[in-house]
């Protein structure tokens, strides 16, 4: 007896929808794992400091997306069973018990999806790490514990919120409502409002991107993305509304597209959420692919920031050190193009009122002259800040004060620490110029007068030097490096730096490519899933059209129109948004980036086009057999 009730309450399996959910969970997990892996973060950071930030933003949006997807799944399942439940209730079963049983079924399915998703996610995660470790010789490890906790928490919340709202929905219905239950028209009530909000949010998002602040942080990455995504949501939700208007404007066009208009008024109202999901996927997929390709095609030629091949660090220099350098230059003279021995002390300044933790270089005016041949004419107690950033390449936010343009610290007195003692001098000027090797672009050099410098050196009791070397040909790099090691153990080399950077770049682009493939896969499966759900009803519609007098060619044309809508509306909307994001969000937009952006979009469109062709063919066979 109880068995029969259970069978009556049981919902359809909808395995394809749950497979999608499982894939979503796995993706979510992989990303959470990657974003919370500190090694991975530093690799991403070394490529492009915005990467970890928008990866995190992506995880947040994936969470929102899972919520929407699951809600859709639940409502779809419930709609299908509502009438059956009405029959059960009308026969005397307890309404509350039935809704509990339903929610329990949903909980079990969710749990199953969660377990499989975590399993698959863990597998993918470790496969990615292993590929990176073995193929690229990296050393990633760490179990993504945070990933498990976060994914579990997010999906528990997704389930609980949806369950609560579904429970209310069921218990709030009269028996007669349940019996006569028709699938809710999922269309929105105020399409005009949605349309307007959509366009407004689009403009707002673009505005945020155009007038972004100078610092790139979580908020400045998330808010434009959120605004644009929300605009995509509103525009696709009201899509059938504003798109129909385009066809109704001229009578011949209107008459030629009657069936398509009919589909817009019915199916595409239902498909609004699908279109939204797809658009969001396109936005992220395309954006990531743009990043990926621009990373991969970036020639990495930052040599203007690294004018010397080697930098040798020398602390507490004595006579022996200087002798070594002399010997080195006389022995290897032919291999060397240029060498400079300059005095630079390591210092530290306070940052945002905290302790002295931020590093600066302190150098005498004469060293600056050695490197550049330029005089500064500094007085005692004055500082000129040297920022080694190419202003043509980086977008530096600057301000004006007392006739001085500054981007790092305003003019005026500033304390700094050298050798355990704090000195206070006055900033009078800031110059932007690449002068010597520097790894950390945010590290500045304070140039002070020679007399000042001598005073500090004598108080500190030591002097520091940096020895810069350029070789005459790349072949001599190993020999020169070997000899330099005898002078000092601390050497940085441009070539080596570039090598690790290249490797890191590869790591990141492999990761992103994988992610884009996953996204593309989920996009297509989402569309196919939806087509599949409606196939019998659509087939009936098409055979009906056939009896009205449509020819095969005309029917094929209708199928093409429909598939074009499913595949290309999200593409057009999504790619517009992600192109805008790609071009406006980054601090520098070069011609190369523009070319990459449009090239990638075309590529993406080409892939979509292939799927579109396949879908059209398959449906043609299905509908018109």
């Amino acid at each position, binding site marked *: 007896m109880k068995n029969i009730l259970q069978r009556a309450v049981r919902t359809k399996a909808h395995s394809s929808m749950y497979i999608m959910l499982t894939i979503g969970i796995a993706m979510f997990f992989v990303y959470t794992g990657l974003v919370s892996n500190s090694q991975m973060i530093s690799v991403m950071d070394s490529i492009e400091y915005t990467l970890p930030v928008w990866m995190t933003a992506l995880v947040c949006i994936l969470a929102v997306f899972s919520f929407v997807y699951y809600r859709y799944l639940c409502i779809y399942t419930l709609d299908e069973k509502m009438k059956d439940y009405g029959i059960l209730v009308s026969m005397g079963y307890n309404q509350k018990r039935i809704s509990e049983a339903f929610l329990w079924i949903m909980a079990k399915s969710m749990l199953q999806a969660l377990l499989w998703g975590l399993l698959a996610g863990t597998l993918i995660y470790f496969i990615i790490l292993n590929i990176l470790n073995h193929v690229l010789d990296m050393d990633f490890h760490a179990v993504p514990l945070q990933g498990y906790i976060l994914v579990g928490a997010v999906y528990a919340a997704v389930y609980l919120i949806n369950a609560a709202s579904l429970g209310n929905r069921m218990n709030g219905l009269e028996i007669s409502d349940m019996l006569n239950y028709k699938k809710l028209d999922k269309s929105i009530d105020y399409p005009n409002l949605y349309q307007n909000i959509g366009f407004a949010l689009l403009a707002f998002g673009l505005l945020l991107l155009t007038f972004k602040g100078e610092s790139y942080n979580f908020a400045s990455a998330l808010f434009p993305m959120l605004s644009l995504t929300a605009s995509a949501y509103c525009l696709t939700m009201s899509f059938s509304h504003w798109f129909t208007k385009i066809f109704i404007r001229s009578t011949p066009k209107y*008459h030629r597209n009657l069936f398509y*208009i*009919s589909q817009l008024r019915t199916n595409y109202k239902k498909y609004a959420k699908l279109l939204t999901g797809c658009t969001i996927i396109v936005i992220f997929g395309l954006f990531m692919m743009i990043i990926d390709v621009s990373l991969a095609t970036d020639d990495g030629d930052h040599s203007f920031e690294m004018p010397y091949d080697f930098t040798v660090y020398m602390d507490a220099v004595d006579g022996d050190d200087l002798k070594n350098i002399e010997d080195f230059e006389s022995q290897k003279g032919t291999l060397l193009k240029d060498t400079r021995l300059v005095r630079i002390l390591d210092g530290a300044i306070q940052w945002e009122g905290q302790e002295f933790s931020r590093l600066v270089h302190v150098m005498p005016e004469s060293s600056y002259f050695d490197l550049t041949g330029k005089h500064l004419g500094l007085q005692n107690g004055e500082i000129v800040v040297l920022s080694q950033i190419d202003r043509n390449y980086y977008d530096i936010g600057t301000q004006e004060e007392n006739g001085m343009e500054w981007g790092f610290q305003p003019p005026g007195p500033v304390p700094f620490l050298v050798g355990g003692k704090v000195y206070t001098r006055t900033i009078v000027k800031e110059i932007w110029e690449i002068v010597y090797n520097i790894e950390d672009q945010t590290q500045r050099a304070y140039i002070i007068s020679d007399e000042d410098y001598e005073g500090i050196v004598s108080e500190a009791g030591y002097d520091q030097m940096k020895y810069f070397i350029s070789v005459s040909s790349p072949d001599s790099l190993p020999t020169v490096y070997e000899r330099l090691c005898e002078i000092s153990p601390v050497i940085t080399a441009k070539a080596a730096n570039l090598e690790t950077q290249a490797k890191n770049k590869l790591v990141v682009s492999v990761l992103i490519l994988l992610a884009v493939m996953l996204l593309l896969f989920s996009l297509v499966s989402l569309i196919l899933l939806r087509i599949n759900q409606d196939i019998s009803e659509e087939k009936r*519609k098409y055979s009906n059209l056939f*009896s*009205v007098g449509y020819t095969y060619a005309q029917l094929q044309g209708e199928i093409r129109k429909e598939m074009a809508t499913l595949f290309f509306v999200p593409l057009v909307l999504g790619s517009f948004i992600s192109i805008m994001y790609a071009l406006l969000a980054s601090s520098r937009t070069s011609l190369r980036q523009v070319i990459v952006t449009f090239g990638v979009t075309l590529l993406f469109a080409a892939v979509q086009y292939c799927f579109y062709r396949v879908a059209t063919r398959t449906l043609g066979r299905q509908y018109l057999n």
Partner: protein
Amino acid sequence: MQYHIMFKNLSKSYQSKGAAKTALSDVTLNIPQGEIFCIMGSSGSGKSTLLKILGGMEKPTSGTVYINGANMADYGQQDYDRHRQMAVGYVFQDFNLLEGLTLKENIILPLTLQKVSETEIQKKYADTLRCVDVGYCENNYPEQSSGGEQQRAAICRAIIKSPKLILADEPTGSLDHVNAKAILSTFMDIKERMQTTIVLVTHDAAVASYCDTVVFIENGRVCDTLRKEETAQLFYERIVTVSSKVRGVI
């Protein structure tokens, strides 16, 4: 303007789950122009199949269909298209209107498939409304219309292209008595005005009694043919007797 249909030794079988299922076997029929020609039979007897073959939706397994002496088997794809687009109007039991179009839009849909000018479309629509009145609800969607309204719109959709042949598959099957009667008188009116041949499928003797000729089909075979020679009431009684006899035989 002759339009004369002849079936000769027509058979149709479907391949379902490996086994062949015969829907029609050896049907020979003559459908004169300008008649309401009724096909009667219980469900599964092959009535719809016959209609689909006539409408060019399906092809027979063997046998021939002659339309004005031309063998349909010789039709090319274009001839089939023209046949469905120009010559035949279809009416179904469950109306088959597109739910996303208003009644008016549904009605003019067939014309938009042909190269018909906008003014011509409006004119033909007005003409059609003179035959069947749905003008008062033309901007309603099917969902907002009664069954009778929907079926009248479906009939309008069939006759707007002035077809030579109307195929109606149980057109009154989903309607109540009053609406069914209205639909039938619409058909009779159309026959009078346009000399259209109407082939009507039903299993309802009351409906059949409005027709000029009634053919009985059981298990895909023609069993009997009756011609109307008396009043509707007497014809009805004759149909009832024959149809119970036909079923009894089989």
